[in-house]
């Protein structure tokens, strides 16, 4: 099966006043049609930089991105316009991602105007169709974003992202800014849309419970590198990388009986300006030895569909 999206050796460095930040270092992965791949990690691990690099919202320093077999770099303007219609994004914060001065018809319709030049009734009909898919109605067309709740705004953002009927949707923490009672609505909506449209998702999150709920495969990142990859159920049931284990043990459980299981990793995420040599997780890792402080361990296959970058896997 060919991958819908394939990313090879993606690298992005930022030169700052204080030095070079290696935000993304040699990241490779694929997303198949109809699949949800989750990208998890804590702040500063590079997950959002990966998303923005895919869309060329920031220009990566190295690596290749193929979408539907087409190299996203260096194509003609026409080719870029084509892939941009099939690759879309929903941002974390629906309070800042919707223009407060535009009405909902204009927000959801904008991509349709740009891509197909739709106008008038044809445009309205398409917008209503997409609003209907996310559970909103024609009565919302003339309203402004401030008239909606957080959950409804995220629905509008999803409707806009789906307006051009993309194949792949990048979801950057789509429920993190929402009230807990509303998160489930958005997660269920995303699952339903995926089924109806055979969409692929690249789901970026730091919430492992949400990832388990929605994703097929998971990619765990730490300080710009992939440390573990595999099917969600197997990775979460028996992680190979000590960092993945540490992340799972840091999720507080609603069962007071499992209180003792909360075993945080010691230490903090090192500065990206001055990352430790070798495995970036070594300073916080109980299993680390001297060999972990030499070269960064490569990401190697380990078992069906799984791989990890660790010299002392669990």
């Amino acid at each position, binding site marked *: 099966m060919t991958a819908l999206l394939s990313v090879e050796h993606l690298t992005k460095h930022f030169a700052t006043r204080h030095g070079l930040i290696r935000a993304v270092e040699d990241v490779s992965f694929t997303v198949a049609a109809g699949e949800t791949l989750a990208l998890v990690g804590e702040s500063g691990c590079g997950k959002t930089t990966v998303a923005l690099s895919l869309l060329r919202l920031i220009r990566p320093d190295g690596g290749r991105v193929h979408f539907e077999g087409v190299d996203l770099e260096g194509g003609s303007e026409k080719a870029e316009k084509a892939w941009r219609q099939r690759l879309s994004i929903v941002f974390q914060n629906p309070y800042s991602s919707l223009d407060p001065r535009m009405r909902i018809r204009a927000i959801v319709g904008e991509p349709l105007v740009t891509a197909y030049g739709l106008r008038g009734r044809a445009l309205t009909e398409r917008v209503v169709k997409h609003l209907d898919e996310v559970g909103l109605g024609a009565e919302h067309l003339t309203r402004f974003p401030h008239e909606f709740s957080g959950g409804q705004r995220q629905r509008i953002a999803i409707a806009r992202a789906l307006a051009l009927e993309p194949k792949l949707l990048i979801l950057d923490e789509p429920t993190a800014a929402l009230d*807990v009672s509303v998160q*489930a609505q958005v997660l269920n909506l995303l699952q339903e849309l995926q089924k109806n449209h055979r969409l692929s998702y690249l789901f970026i999150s730091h919430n492992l419970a949400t990832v388990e709920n929605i994703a097929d495969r998971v990619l765990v990142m730490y300080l710009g590198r992939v440390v573990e990859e595999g099917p*969600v159920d197997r990775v979460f049931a028996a992680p190979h990388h000590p960092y993945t284990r540490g992340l799972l043990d840091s999720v*507080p459980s609603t*069962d*007071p009986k499992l209180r003792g299981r909360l075993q*945080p990793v*010691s230490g903090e995420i090192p500065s990206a300006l001055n990352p430790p040599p070798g495995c970036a997780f070594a300073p916080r890792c109980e299993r680390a030895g001297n060999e972990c402080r030499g070269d960064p361990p490569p990401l190697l296959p380990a078992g069906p569909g799984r791989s990890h970058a660790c010299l002392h896997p669990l």
Partner: protein
Amino acid sequence: MSDNLLEIVDLRIEFPSLERTVMAVRGCDLSVVKGEVMGLVGESGSGKSMTALACLGLVPPPGRVTGSVRLDGHEVVGASEADNERLRGGVAAMIFQNPGKALNPFFTIGRQLTDALACVRGLTRGAAEQAAVEALTEVRIADPALAMHKYPHQVSGGQLQRVMIAMALSCQPKLVIADEPTTALDVTIQAQVIVLLRDLARIHGLTVLFITHDLGVVGSLCDRLAVMYAGRVVESGPVDALFASPAHPYTASLLRAVPMLGRGRSVLTQIPGTVPNMAAPPPGCAFHPRCPVAQPRCSGDDPASRETGSGRTVACHFPLPAPAGAEAGATVGSLAS
């Protein structure tokens, strides 16, 4: 004489404006027993942060506060600013969600800690500095002497929250109010702070009012919890019993709607609708428009909070029955295993 360090009765907080009055808190009842860690859970706009601020007499103008908040025997509502100032720091201290905003960026961590100590405990500068280093050691900051000389922007969010905890504890308060102290932190750092707070509460016999929207954090930290919805406490009780058999439909729905690790891939039971607008809350029970078991009575008649035994209260006309043979923690436990 009750054992309640904090007793809130029929607390109401209103913010009047030209167009309409926002009722942030609408008759909140809550008591916190000495030595317990009490979780106050609610979504944004449920009034949980305002309730916390009212405990210290810190509701910002033009907020109108009525009802009663008794903190260690002192009535806070209606008391003079001078009286309430004595409570802050000495009797109760607060830890805020965003430590970066709670600390002054122009002064070193050491200076801010020693100022607080000198002010509240009346220590000399030298004694205060020593106490500050001790306080930083207690919250497990890597190099306390070095941290004293750093400015807030030079340390990480997790370390800053430790400084805030050190500052709150340094004045030896009886009650610590923590308003979402781990929400802005990364998962692994959040777990460290939860474990730290749990240990400190045990060592010092602290009473903690812990405000959060995260049920997992409540499960791993708190002894009891109170669930707030639309400005009222709709259910309260011991954490294990309440999670095993929630009586209020809102609590039950919330427990099913939140993804939890170990449940696998599933369709979540969603709560329809959105959090009500507090300028015009629904009549009757505020949850009735979203409630799966609402009856006609619920839209007219606001249920009063009543005790149901074993230290539990619920404000619902039709509370859910406890499942037969329900053992504390059984439901959630089976899901997590």
